[in-house]
């Protein structure tokens, strides 16, 4: 079993197979293999191709976790194949592992997917520095340490798509730009040299892009192999929209601001009041459910809300600590 500390165990792989040219439907092939503790997921993909079926297809290039080509899903979890150790996978999921492409519906051949939607969205946020650069500059454009740190590692994204295809909103809403595109947008929004700051922000704020449609599930933060933490960048974009005065009044922005008003008034939230503030007259659509909730004792009228004790403290803090006006 063990030589030089390397251990081996049997793993049953259930592998997604599909060739868009020949197959009407995808199917799964089983491969049983002895896996050593020092292998990464990419080694398994290689062995399937080399030892079992030469037609098995997947993408890889750098083998150093830097090109982003090899991202796939293991037991539903987005993973960078060349970086992810088999030991971790077995610890996490046991000895039955399902290997699938990042997106089943976008599979072209086995693990290879059409990443077109990912790149379209990446391109749409103008993923480059927009600046009037002097063609013959006399000196470099020095960026201070603090200014560089403001990017919060958004610049180390390798475009692997792991977060994009893990995002549940991407699955159900074609317009949603997705975590990677938003993280990329932040990367340039936070760059002091960029001169299209407000223009890019306005575009992101426009309704169909969905900067407000994130469900805050943290899947993107969880799967990113480079710890870019896209949801954190989406939050930063929201904050920028308010700070820069780009945010306009819509149900999402009012929803965020409504919390402040409610807290300033009661300490706690007035949940019904918040929905009214966010929705405006459109609140009528919530009436049927609200009535049912009321009947079941699930809605407290505004006058019966238990306010926080020491409310004066909260009021004072809301006043003195607010950093944003809207």
């Amino acid at each position, binding site marked *: 079993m063990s030589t030089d500390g390397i251990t081996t165990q049997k793993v049953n792989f259930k592998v997604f197979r599909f060739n868009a040219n020949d197959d009407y439907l995808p199917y799964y092939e089983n491969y049983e293999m002895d896996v050593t503790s020092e292998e990464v997921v990419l080694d398994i993909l290689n062995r399937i191709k080399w030892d079992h079926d030469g037609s098995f297809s997947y993408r890889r290039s750098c083998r150093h976790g830097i090109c982003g080509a090899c991202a796939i899903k293991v037991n539903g979890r987005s993973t960078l194949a060349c970086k992810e150790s088999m030991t971790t996978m077995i610890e996490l999921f046991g000895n039955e592992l399902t290997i699938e492409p990042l997106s089943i519906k976008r599979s072209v051949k086995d693990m290879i997917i059409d990443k077109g939607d990912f790149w379209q969205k990446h391109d749409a946020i103008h993923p480059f520095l927009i600046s009037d650069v002097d063609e013959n500059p006399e000196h470099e454009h020095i960026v201070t340490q603090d200014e560089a740190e403001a990017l919060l590692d958004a610049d180390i994204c390798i475009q692997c798509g792991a977060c994009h295809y893990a995002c549940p909103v991407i699955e159900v809403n074609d317009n949603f730009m997705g975590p990677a595109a938003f993280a990329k947008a932040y990367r340039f929004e936070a760059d002091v040299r960029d001169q299209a700051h407000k223009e890019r922000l306005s575009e992101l704020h426009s309704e169909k892009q969905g900067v407000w449609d994130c*469900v805050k599930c943290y899947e993107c933060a969880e799967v990113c192999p480079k710890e870019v933490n896209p949801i954190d960048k989406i939050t930063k974009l929201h904050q920028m929209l*308010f700070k820069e005065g780009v945010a306009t009044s819509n149900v999402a922005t009012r929803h965020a601001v409504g919390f402040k008003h409610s*807290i300033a008034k009661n300490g706690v939230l007035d949940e019904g009041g918040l929905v009214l503030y966010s929705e405006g007259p459109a609140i009528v659509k919530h009436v049927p*459910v609200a009535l049912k909730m009321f009947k079941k004792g699930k809605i407290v009228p505004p006058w019966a809300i238990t306010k*926080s004790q020491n409310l004066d403290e909260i009021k004072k*803090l809301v006043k003195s600590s*607010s950093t944003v006006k809207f």
Partner: protein
Amino acid sequence: MEKLKYALFTGCTAKQSTPEQMKSTMAVADKLGIELVELTEASCCGASHLQDYDDFLSLVLNARNIAYAEKHGLTMVTICNTCQLNTAMTKHRLDNNEKLKAQVNEKLAEVGLEYKGTSEVTHFLYAIIDDFGLDKIKEMVKTPLRDFNIAPFYGCHNIRPSELQNETHKSAESAYRPTSLDDLIIACGGNNVDYAEKTKCCGFHAELQAPKTAATLTGNAIAGAMDNDSDWMVTPCPLCHLKLDTQTHHASEAIGREVALPVLHMQQMLGLALGCTPDELGLNHHLTKVDFV
């Protein structure tokens, strides 16, 4: 065992749209002999939306809440996943950034408070598992839930980001194979259902701005539980409960299929097993009728 005592941060929902959650928390704490000191001074945590607007204000308010737990010298327990995340995240940021902590404390000083970082922040679910212990729960079960297939629905903010969760809870759990709720179901004598959606998002936080997306996610979650032969669902998060219990009509419409299952708060499930009455647990407050008791 020494009597367990915590500072209870109720959050807003338990006091408003899920009164049964407050009721069942108190009933369960009573049965287990856990003392809960309610933090009546606490404000809303901002529910992950206030920070989109004003991050600093959100930090100050959450730090104030923790400061009150610190005044009692107690660990804070939350009973909402989102309250848990916002509070734990605030704690993490302040404990790891002296400058930020000083800025926040400058504000808190205006009302005579200070955030020190001395109180832990944990969810009631983890307090039960880590501090009380599942073995003891097993011994105390009066009515084993053995006839039921129960689908655990974890809710995002208790399991992700796992780095933060692992730092916060003694029984660190995997974001991909969490076990706490499954273990609790088993301790209560029930059959835990495994299904792909159990760690997925219910859509709550985009309900107003992206109703179709949110309703689809809700529908998929209930459908996943139904397709795996669940009798009911259980969740530690009142926001997930609200979405899964009250939005079945929209969810069914969004996914083109009738979906509905009773959705119990984890306190209600535990309470049933411990022998609390349906009334003590507020089982009459659900929109999707709890018809098995």
